[in-house]
């Protein structure tokens, strides 16, 4: 089989965030195949594809298209080399018609004037030739998300793309639309086009791809025939087996129910539910871990509980108080603390100093303010206490915090959130991007909080982290809770099956979708 794409020794380092997104990646894709690239968020798969599409320049490495070396420094050059990309967030103009969007930038014109009838006709012919019926005169704002995706695909085909990159194409689709998309992809591949599918949904890989490459932390772990690997194998490759330092902890002594969420319904992007009927309980003195491949509703679930996202159905109660539609401040006053996934924009305000950052959750309470006036001495000594207790290095009271490293920033967040023994702690990816020392510190701190009686809800894409910290494990898939396991009975295999949408009673992954 001739090779459609070869990427050799690709390396990309982002100095601003200090992330090595691609580390000596070698990828080879055969002509006419559907090649899936899987990996967690931040594994480097999107960066790799951005390099191929000319959006990002690699530090090192070589790209070959149709076995000829090419330089792709701009998307225009990628398009010229026959590469098309369908982005996760569609790049369409909502008020334009389908035809106008497909022909944008390559409009047939006479002296600058566009003939919209020929345009619509061209698009109709194109769509018919690929068996993808559309109405060229419908406006993008009026059509479904699935149809919009079809427009994006046609847009690349009109530009004569032979290699199609699809970035998380099913993230916003309904099950029926997913099914149609599979048919389209298969048809295009049969027609000799090469499909590169970026995803972290393993079921999807099994359904539609020929071969799969697994990425983890910037490295390409391996390429396999899909027929030869099981979903569980892929999940294991994705999550990795690197041993995280063992967390010393006593068995949990769960107390009363602290948090209760029932039948939660939360909207995702594109009008599809991100969380569909999830129910959960967290007791005092236990850590409940939510496992799952990222993008299966964990973030939305957590944000709904934290008050950062509206709840459309079901209810949440914290310490017996109904907080379903309460503001963040009320939740915090009831006893909630939140370590957010995104500490740079949500957890901290990098434009101000340490004092103002640690004050945000308690500036209204004494002694941090009196009669509406901030008490800087109290705030400063609190900041000082965090610096000392949480070993925040190179931080100084009153200084801007944007110079601190990721680990130290996270320690600031931890200190602010965990101080004062909150009754309920949400910890979303608490160790993402941290060095080993900081990870150990975060784990120890969370276990200490548990032993002091806090109820902790933990989300992590690192399965090992879930396994070593949690007392109970909940597995989410496609917005639903697939199962609840006690840590004594939990093993990676079972979790892997649940994470892939399977059930423990049956052997094969079942698709129980509504």
């Amino acid at each position, binding site marked *: 089989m001739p090779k459609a794409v070869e990427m050799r020794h690709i390396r990309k380092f982002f100095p601003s965030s200090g992330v090595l997104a691609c580390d000596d990646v070698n990828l080879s894709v055969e002509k006419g195949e559907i090649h899936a690239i899987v990996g967690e968020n931040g594994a480097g798969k999107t960066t790799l594809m951005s390099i191929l599409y000319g959006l990002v320049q690699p530090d090192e490495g070589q790209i070959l298209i149709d076995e000829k070396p090419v330089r792709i420094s701009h*998307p*225009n050059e990628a*398009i010229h080399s026959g590469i098309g990309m369908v*982005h996760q967030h569609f*790049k*369409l*103009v*909502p*008020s*334009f018609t389908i035809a*106008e*969007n497909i022909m*944008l*930038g*390559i*409009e047939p*014109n006479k002296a*600058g*004037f*566009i003939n919209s009838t020929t345009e619509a006709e061209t698009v109709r012919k194109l769509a018919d030739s690929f068996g993808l019926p559309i109405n060229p005169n419908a406006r993008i704002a009026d059509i479904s998300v699935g149809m919009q995706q079809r427009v994006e695909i046609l*847009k690349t085909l009109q530009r004569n793309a032979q290699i199609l990159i699809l970035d998380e194409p099913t993230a916003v689709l309904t099950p029926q639309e997913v099914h149609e998309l599979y048919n389209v992809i298969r048809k295009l591949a049969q027609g000799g086009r090469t499909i590169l599918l970026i995803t972290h949904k393993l079921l999807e890989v099994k359904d539609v791809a020929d071969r799969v490459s697994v990425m983890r932390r910037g490295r390409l772990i391996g390429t396999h025939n899909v027929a030869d690997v099981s979903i569980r194998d892929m999940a294991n490759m994705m999550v990795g087996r690197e041993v995280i330092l063992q967390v010393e902890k006593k068995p949990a002594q769960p107390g009363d129910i602290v948090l209760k969420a029932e*039948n939660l*319904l939360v*909207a995702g992007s594109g*009008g599809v*539910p991100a969380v*569909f*009927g999830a129910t959960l309980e967290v007791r005092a003195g236990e850590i409940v871990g939510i496992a799952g491949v990222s993008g299966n509703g964990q973030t939305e679930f957590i944000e709904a509980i934290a008050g950062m996202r*509206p709840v*459309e*159905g079901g209810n949440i109660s914290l310490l017996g108080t109904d907080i379903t539609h309460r503001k963040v401040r009320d939740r915090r006053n009831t006893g909630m603390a939140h370590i957010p996934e995104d500490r740079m924009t949500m957890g901290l305000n990098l434009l101000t100093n340490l004092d103002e950052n640690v004050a945000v959750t308690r500036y209204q309470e004494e002694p941090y303010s009196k009669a509406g006036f901030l008490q800087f001495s109290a705030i400063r000594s609190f900041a000082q206490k965090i610096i000392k207790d949480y070993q925040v290095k190179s931080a100084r009271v009153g200084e801007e915090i944007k110079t601190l490293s990721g680990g130290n920033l996270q320690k600031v967040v931890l200190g602010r959130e965990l101080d004062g023994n909150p009754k309920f702690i949400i910890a979303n990816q608490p160790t993402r991007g941290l060095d080993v020392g900081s990870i150990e510190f975060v784990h120890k701190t969370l276990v200490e909080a548990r032993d002091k009686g806090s109820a902790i809800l933990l989300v992590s894409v690192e399965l090992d982290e879930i396994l070593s910290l949690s007392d109970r494990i909940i597995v989410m898939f496609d917005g639903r809770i697939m199962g609840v396991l006690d840590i004594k009975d939990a093993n990676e295999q079972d979790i892997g099956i649940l994470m892939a949408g399977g059930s423990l009673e049956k052997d094969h992954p079942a698709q129980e979708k*509504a």
Partner: protein
Amino acid sequence: MIDFLTNNARKIRLTLIIAGILIGLLLFIGLPVILVQSSIRLATPYILGALAAMVASRAGVLNLAIDGKMLLGAFIAVVVLYKTGYNPIVGVVAASISGGMLGLVFAVLYLRIKINLIILAIALNLFVANATVFFMRVSFGAFGTLADPSISGLPTIQLPIISSIPILNERLSGYNIVVYIGWVMIAVVWLILFRTRFGRHIRAVGENREAAESVGINVTLVQVFALTLSGALAGIAGSFLSIGVLSQFVENMTAGRGWTAITVSLFAFQQPIAAFFTSLFFGLSEAISLYLQGQPGINIPPDLLLAAPQVAALIALVLVAVRIRAAELLKRRNFATHFGQELANLKRAVLERN
């Protein structure tokens, strides 16, 4: 209420448009000729200014420097005619070139040097307002007003066929060329925006910059062109104020018309044809206000009439915002009912199975 408004949005819009046109026609025929004529004249700077604001907005740049570009156009038109004594049409061309050049400067300062858009506009307006008066005094020794018999005003034009039709002749014919340029520009801008490649690229850049970039459109270039065109239109609008009325330049003669033009374009929701009617509405209120000032017997406050179109514009903006908010709420409610139902069905099915 929300449901009704959302479901019948198109019908409501159509009804409003038809009602508007009918009222417009009635006013056009029913009002005294003088009022119709002065409304049309007074609407001209708004038409051109609103088109200028529109071209920039459509390209995704809020152009708050319209007033400065208008003022510059007004000044340059007079200066060129004063220095050369050429045909006044040269003044209009010079005004549009000067406006276009200021638009280009605006584009470069905003896109290359990346000065904050609003601060930049404020600084440019301030600069033009002061520089025009400065030169008027320094180079021409004029105080407050720059006028000279050598500056010829724009002649009036009798339209060939219309001038022989009874009712229409005095209402549609006999204005100076900039009035007609304004009308033609409505069509031209409409054609550019909706029928040419350039216009489509402008709209794509303004609506979804990333979509335009992803297909290889040079966003910066499109914005530079749009801002230059916007400046040229504003310059023509300015020339109407100076050589289209009294053939003189008066200190700060735009009197905030550039800002009003921005309001007009917002009121017209960036549609050229709507901008024509909105401008006429603003022109009419100004004309009535002037008319009333000359009628000592009538006791209607003329200045409040000038506020009326502004109030209407604000109300229109608020109504649109309400509609957007209502649509969001409706979407959320539909989501909750639809999937809530589905969830309940699923639960029941599970219970029945057990």
